[in-house]
């Protein structure tokens, strides 16, 4: 921020640069004027300008290189910059090139127009005229000198010194000198007394003199003074040379000088024509080059400044596209682009807000879903939802508890697919699948099946799900395991029956028995022997049957009364051993026990549990008909996070028929000729009152029983029967 403040505005820097360039160009332009003081600096100015051009070229080159790299990287805004710069260069270059071309044309034509054959000729003629005029004067002067020499020929050498003075006056020469043949000065006279030494001819003049005997030429004595030097031979005994210097009249000298100046100037210009064109072209090119390069460079800077918001916008858009809504672009200027940037910022703010709201809604939905899932998971009823093709979408924990199939195995499969892994569930699953597929409305059905824990009864309620346009999109099935409920209902009904029976039947039985005995007692003596015997037989039958009915009624009352009278900790192995001790003496029966190590304790009424064991062992003994193997095992098992003690009793008897398995625990269900059919019902009642469960184990048989079954040819499917009891274990 501080550096921004210190930095001068870019427009000022550009203005300063342009000023400098203009100054340099102006200086160079001034230097081209021959008379200018800057003329001496022309080369330096040219060099500085050329260097400036090179620097600008470098700057432009660097910008182009940077732009090319940006283009290669496909950076935001690079293509727009390229387009704008190209447009600018074309727009700037085209008129500049046209102006440059015509300027060059005018320049060349202008310079060429200075020179033409007529002026050439006139200049040469003027010079020739001057030369002819001077030539004439020279010849006339030579003639005069010859006359002087003639006069001097006759006079003796000694008088020459005096004679020369006269001769000079006579001829009008400014200086007259007589040289010996060797070039020695014999006599000299000058109209300027200060000239001590006369003007001496150089070696070239002497050479010419010796060759032709005469010499005449113009001699510039001083800068602007012309003299005519004429030398002639003075004939005599010893040849001598007379040199006479005649001044050229000032006017003629001036005119000749003027003509020469003009001629030289013209000739110079003519000679320098190409250099002049080159020089002007160079200056013009330099001006054009510098201006163009500076303009292009400034264009680069300006376009970069213009593009900056666009670039930021592109980057911002890319960021927004990739999901970053926190973009806040700086508003550089309050122009259209600034407005665009502000609009963009507003848009991103709104998007961010909308995105936040969506996310919050998502979280809300997720929470709701989790809440529902928790509720579903904690429902005792199993809930399974299906999609449109009847694949399971969700299933809760209760479904797992009811079917004993893990939830993970439900999802994404149809019920029929599940059947393959769980044969015992085939019947209910097929029924549910059929109902789900067929029902167009809410349906409810009870489905009974034989599960791994015995007979189970499910109450299923299904609801097909429809989309808003009436398409079937799935279904929901809710099912409850109502086995216990139904059993409880049955138990209650049976209990009521038993209680009524005990009450209604037991009361008249005693009078019946007593009456029969009284009849026997009173009439036996009064009857004849055959009648007395018949009476005896009848009364005995009555008494026996009454006894039997009493036993039956006792059994009923036993069944009807609650079994869990007191609750203590029972050491099951001890209890089992205690009960078995009563049976081990029986010949032909072999008992086998198998207990888990450690404490196997349950809470319950020991009398009731003992009765359970008695009933089951008795049942087994009856099944094996007094000889065979009875196996009792005690195991610790865990089910639904609860510890159970499992009591398993197996025999190698004829087994239980499939159709009986379902009803074997019902009162009055028995396969035996003798018995009330209440034994297993009471067992089941006691176990359930202790919070346990009992079922027929169809999965296990004693070894060798299958062979027995085949050899005997019995129709039973299962050979050897087994009961499994699970009681909640005591936790210490």
């Amino acid at each position, binding site marked *: 921020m501080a550096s921004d403040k210190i930095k001068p505005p870019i427009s000022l820097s550009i203005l300063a640069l342009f000023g400098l360039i203009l100054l340099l160009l102006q200086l160079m332009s001034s230097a081209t004027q*021959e008379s200018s003081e800057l003329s001496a600096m022309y*080369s330096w100015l040219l060099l500085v300008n050329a260097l400036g051009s090179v620097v600008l070229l470098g700057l432009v080159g660097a910008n182009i290189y940077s732009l090319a790299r940006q283009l290669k990287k496909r950076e935001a805004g690079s293509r727009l910059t390229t387009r704008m710069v190209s447009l600018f260069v074309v727009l700037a270059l085209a008129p500049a090139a046209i102006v440059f071309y015509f300027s060059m044309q005018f320049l060349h034509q202008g310079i060429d127009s200075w020179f033409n054959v007529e002026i050439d000729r006139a200049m040469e003629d003027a010079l020739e005229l001057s030369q002819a005029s001077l030539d004439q004067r020279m010849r006339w002067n030579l003639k005069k000198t010859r006359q002087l020499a003639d006069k001097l020929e006759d006079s003796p050498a000694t008088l020459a010194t005096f004679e020369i003075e006269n001769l000079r006056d006579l001829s009008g020469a400014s200086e007259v000198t007589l040289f010996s043949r060797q070039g020695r000065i014999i006599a000299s006279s000058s109209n300027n007394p200060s000239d001590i030494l006369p003007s001496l001819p150089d070696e070239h003049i002497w050479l010419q003199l010796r060759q032709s005997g005469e010499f005449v030429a113009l*001699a*510039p004595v001083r800068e602007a003074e012309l003299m005519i030097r004429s030398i002639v031979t003075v004939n005599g005994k010893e040849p001598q040379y007379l040199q006479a210097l005649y001044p050229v009249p000032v006017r003629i000298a001036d005119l000749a000088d003027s003509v*020469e100046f003009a001629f030289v100037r013209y000739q*110079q210009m003519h*000679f*320098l024509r190409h*250099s002049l064109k080159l020089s002007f072209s*160079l200056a013009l090119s330099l001006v054009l080059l510098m201006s163009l390069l500076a303009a292009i460079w400034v264009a680069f800077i300006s376009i970069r400044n213009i593009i900056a918001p666009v670039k930021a916008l592109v980057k911002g858009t890319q960021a927004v596209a990739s999901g970053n809504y926190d973009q806040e672009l700086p508003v550089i200027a309050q122009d259209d682009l600034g407005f665009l940037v502000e609009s963009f910022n507003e848009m991103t703010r709104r998007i961010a807000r909308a995105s936040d709201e969506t996310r919050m809604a998502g979280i809300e939905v997720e929470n709701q879903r989790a809440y529902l899932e928790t509720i579903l998971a904690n429902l005792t009823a199993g809930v399974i939802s299906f999609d449109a093709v009847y694949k399971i979408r969700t299933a809760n924990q209760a479904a797992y508890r009811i079917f004993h199939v893990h939830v993970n195995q439900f999802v994404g499969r149809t019920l029929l697919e599940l059947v393959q892994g769980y044969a015992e569930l085939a019947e209910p699953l097929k029924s549910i699948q059929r109902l789900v597929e067929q029902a167009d409305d809410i349906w409810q059905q009870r489905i009974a099946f034989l599960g791994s824990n015995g007979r189970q009864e499910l109450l299923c309620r299904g609801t097909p799900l429809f989309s808003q346009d009436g398409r079937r999109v799935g279904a929901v099935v809710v099912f409850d395991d109502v086995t216990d409920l139904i059993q409880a209902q049955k138990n209650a009904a049976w209990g009521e029956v038993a209680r009524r029976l005990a009450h209604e039947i037991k009361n008249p039985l005693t009078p019946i028995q007593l009456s029969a005995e009284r009849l026997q007692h009173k009439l036996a003596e009064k009857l004849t022997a055959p009648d007395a015997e018949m009476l005896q037989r009848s009364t005995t039958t009555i008494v026996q049957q009454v006894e039997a009915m009493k036993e039956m009624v006792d059994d009923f009352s036993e069944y009807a009364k609650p079994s869990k009278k007191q609750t203590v900790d029972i050491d099951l192995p001890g209890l089992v051993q205690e009960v078995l001790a009563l049976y081990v003496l029986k010949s032909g029966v072999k008992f086998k026990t198998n207990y888990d190590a450690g404490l196997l304790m349950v809470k319950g009424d020991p009398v009731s549990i003992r009765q359970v064991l008695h009933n089951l062992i008795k049942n087994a003994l009856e099944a094996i008909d007094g000889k065979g193997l009875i196996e009792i095992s005690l195991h610790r098992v865990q089910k639904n996070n609860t510890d159970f003690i499992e009591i398993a009793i197996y025999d190698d008897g004829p087994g239980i028929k499939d159709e009986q398995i379902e009803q074997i625990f019902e009162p009055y269900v028995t396969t035996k000729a003798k018995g009330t059919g209440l034994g297993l019902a009471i067992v089941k009642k006691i176990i359930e009152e202790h919070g346990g469960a009992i079922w027929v184990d169809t999965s296990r048989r004693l070894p060798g029983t299958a062979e027995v079954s085949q050899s005997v040819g019995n129709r039973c499917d299962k050979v050897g029967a087994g009961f499994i009891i699970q009681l909640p274990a005591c936790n210490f």
Partner: protein
Amino acid sequence: MRASASHKSSLCRSLLCCFLLWLLPTLSHADTFGVVVKNAEIALKGDSYLLSADINFQLSARAKEALQNGVPLFWDIHIKTLQHRDYFWDSTLVNAAIRYRIQYHALLNMYRVRNEGSRDVYNFSTLSAALDLMSTIRDFRVMDKTFYVPGKRYSVGIKVTLDRDALPLPLRPVAYANPQWYLSSDWTLWPLTK
């Protein structure tokens, strides 16, 4: 591929030929023009060391043409006396220059040489005579005897330069670019002995 390679090599060869052809006149001119200090002699006369030297001026065709067309040429004959020092750069004891201007006068058909220092003017009917005047240096005083320190080494150098910045303005860029105008000599140094 081979064809293109041979094409490339032939292109290179022709380019080299062109370059050599362009260089050839430059080389030939380099032999025929330029200024060389031919010989120099330093003699002790009286209290002064006097330098006599002969310089060979060979003007290039372009310079002669310019001179013929009335362009004056300015020549500087730089003369310096150096005292050598072992650990430092040499000190310049005398630094003198003779500046001549030579110009052709069309009216008189003469070459006029003017010593810009003494303002003496000499006229010659031929260019060689005019150049002769500039090429002869006789008894130019380079150092007083009193400055001579025995044991030190001295040398006298001569350099002749054509003042290109004194040329007419349009000719200056050309003069810097065209080798025909590179007429100046290098420094020629002679040891000054007692």
